[in-house]
């Protein structure tokens, strides 16, 4: 009798994935704690940290005043602007450089094609961290330290972009290319008027990877910049956070953290499928 009930419970749990859901809920909850704690800290008034550090419901909603206070202490407007300029400018340059090259690798015949493509692929295997020092020496000898250009320069040629776009260009049927050529549309004209719209999904995928990677990048931009003139948001926030010794400043730091990560979460919410697929393809590089 008892074993029968136990069996029934077991079958119910199997059918409704009760155990599975339970394990996943608990793990997700643990992973979400830091995010949850950012929000709780960010909406607290700076003083409350001292007498009620672990309260879950803050006495007053101070998120906006915290953001305003932090904004007045450090040049976050500059940081934000620098980040947008670096990320967007870099993306445009990456596309301009990679699209014609990918087209050449995909649709044109020329001597040394395989060798040249190998040279591009090898760059895919060189991670940004292993070339910190050589790139720093170069940028510094060019007199470009503390500029936005220095942050972006090493990433202008993106092998991942070439790889993804080459794959996409290869899938365009030859008839489409021929038909366009009869109409006098070939080469760069073809790429601009027809090619780009045909490889659009890949352009979106690459853009997602590039934007997230460079929005988030910390160490390289930190190395080559010294002042708010060129520094990006991640660096500004990290330095602001490190300066904060007392708990009171943590409410400000966490408030700014929300401002920094909201664009990323917004992008993630809108392009969730696209995002996950892009990250599957990116692996080690941006």
């Amino acid at each position, binding site marked *: 009798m008892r074993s029968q009930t136990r069996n029934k419970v077991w079958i119910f749990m199997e059918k409704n994935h009760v155990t599975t859901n339970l394990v996943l809920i608990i793990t997700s909850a643990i*992973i979400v704690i830091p995010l949850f704690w950012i929000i709780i800290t960010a909406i607290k008034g700076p003083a409350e940290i001292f007498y009620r550090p672990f309260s879950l419901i803050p006495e007053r909603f101070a998120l906006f005043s915290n953001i305003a206070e932090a904004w007045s202490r450090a040049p976050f407007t500059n940081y934000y602007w620098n980040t947008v300029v670096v990320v967007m400018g870099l993306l445009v340059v990456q596309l301009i450089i990679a699209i014609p090259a990918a087209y050449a690798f995909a649709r044109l015949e020329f001597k040394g094609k395989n060798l040249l493509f190998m040279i591009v692929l090898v760059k895919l295997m060189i991670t940004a961290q*292993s070339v910190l020092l050589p790139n720093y020496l*170069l940028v510094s000898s060019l007199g470009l330290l503390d500029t936005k250009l220095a942050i972006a320069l090493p990433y202008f*040629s993106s092998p991942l972009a070439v790889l993804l776009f080459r794959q996409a260009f290869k899938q365009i049927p030859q008839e489409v290319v021929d038909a366009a050529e009869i109409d006098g549309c070939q080469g760069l004209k073809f790429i601009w008027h027809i090619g780009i719209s045909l490889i659009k999904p890949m352009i979106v995928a690459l853009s997602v990877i590039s934007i997230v990677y460079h929005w988030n990048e910390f160490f390289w931009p930190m190395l080559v910049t010294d002042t708010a003139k060129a520094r990006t948001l991640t660096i500004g926030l990290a330095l602001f956070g490190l300066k904060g010794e007392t708990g009171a400043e943590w409410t400000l730091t966490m408030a700014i953290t929300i401002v*920094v990560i909201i664009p990323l979460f917004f992008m993630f919410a809108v392009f969730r499928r696209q995002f996950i697929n892009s990250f599957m393809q990116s692996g080690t590089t941006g």
Partner: protein
Amino acid sequence: MVKNSQKVKRTKLTKSVIRPYLYLIPLFTFLIVFTYYPIARMFYLSLFQWGIGSKKVFIGIENYITVSTTPLFWQVVRNNIVFSFGSVFISVSLALFLAVLANKNLKFKGFYQSLLFYPHIIPLAVGALIWIWLFNPRQGLFNHLLGAEVNWLNSFELALPSLMVVQIWANMGYYFLLFLAGLQNLPASLYEVAELDGANSWQKFRHLTFPLISSTTFFVILLAIIHSIQSVDLVYLMTEGGPANSSNLIIYYLYTEAFRWWHLDIASTISSILFIVLLLLTALYFILLERKVYYA
């Protein structure tokens, strides 16, 4: 007339011969100037004794001997191995376990995916800040929940494990997604046969899932190792390698040699060694990725 058409033909021909190269010029200009040239120069410079403003003296492999006889170098390498092994083992096995569990028709699968994956899309540097706050000895949530008063990031024993926790938190969800994608490609028919034979879930995992997904497992492990070598942001922001170098990792060590002490010759040497190790690892990663693409 004939002459004219020949001329047109010739310009057309030269155009089609040159065109591909024209399309590649911008790419290769930046590739050479900002990747291959600096790397070649780094290897070249590692063979000299030099510093800011001092004259270069060729000394062959002496820098490599100096580095390999520095105890701190080996301590950092050891730390990095401990850090990589610990964080890779835990994050990859946890990701595999959760992916096998979640590989069903679950109602909230997308929801779980988002919750587990979000740490990977926020900057690691910001993740570091959040965890400094969570690890805060007096007002941090961690000590509060544990009822302890541990100074996590300032402890000789706990600094490195604390960094591992952050590394696992940041990447586990990404590996989870990779495993989930791998699992979705496995043939359902095999599992039906196994179920008819009365295999239980452990047997199915042990004899079907695990061998079938081994190529994914290999390449996730490799990716995780590469990620773990790259985690300089965490060290820089959370512990600065301390206390007493107990949490110093290779890229942070390189950073201090180069930009704190300005030992540029020694730093070039460490950088060259690191470059080769990372290149070998990533090359292996791409070979496995290629295999996966073609044979899976």
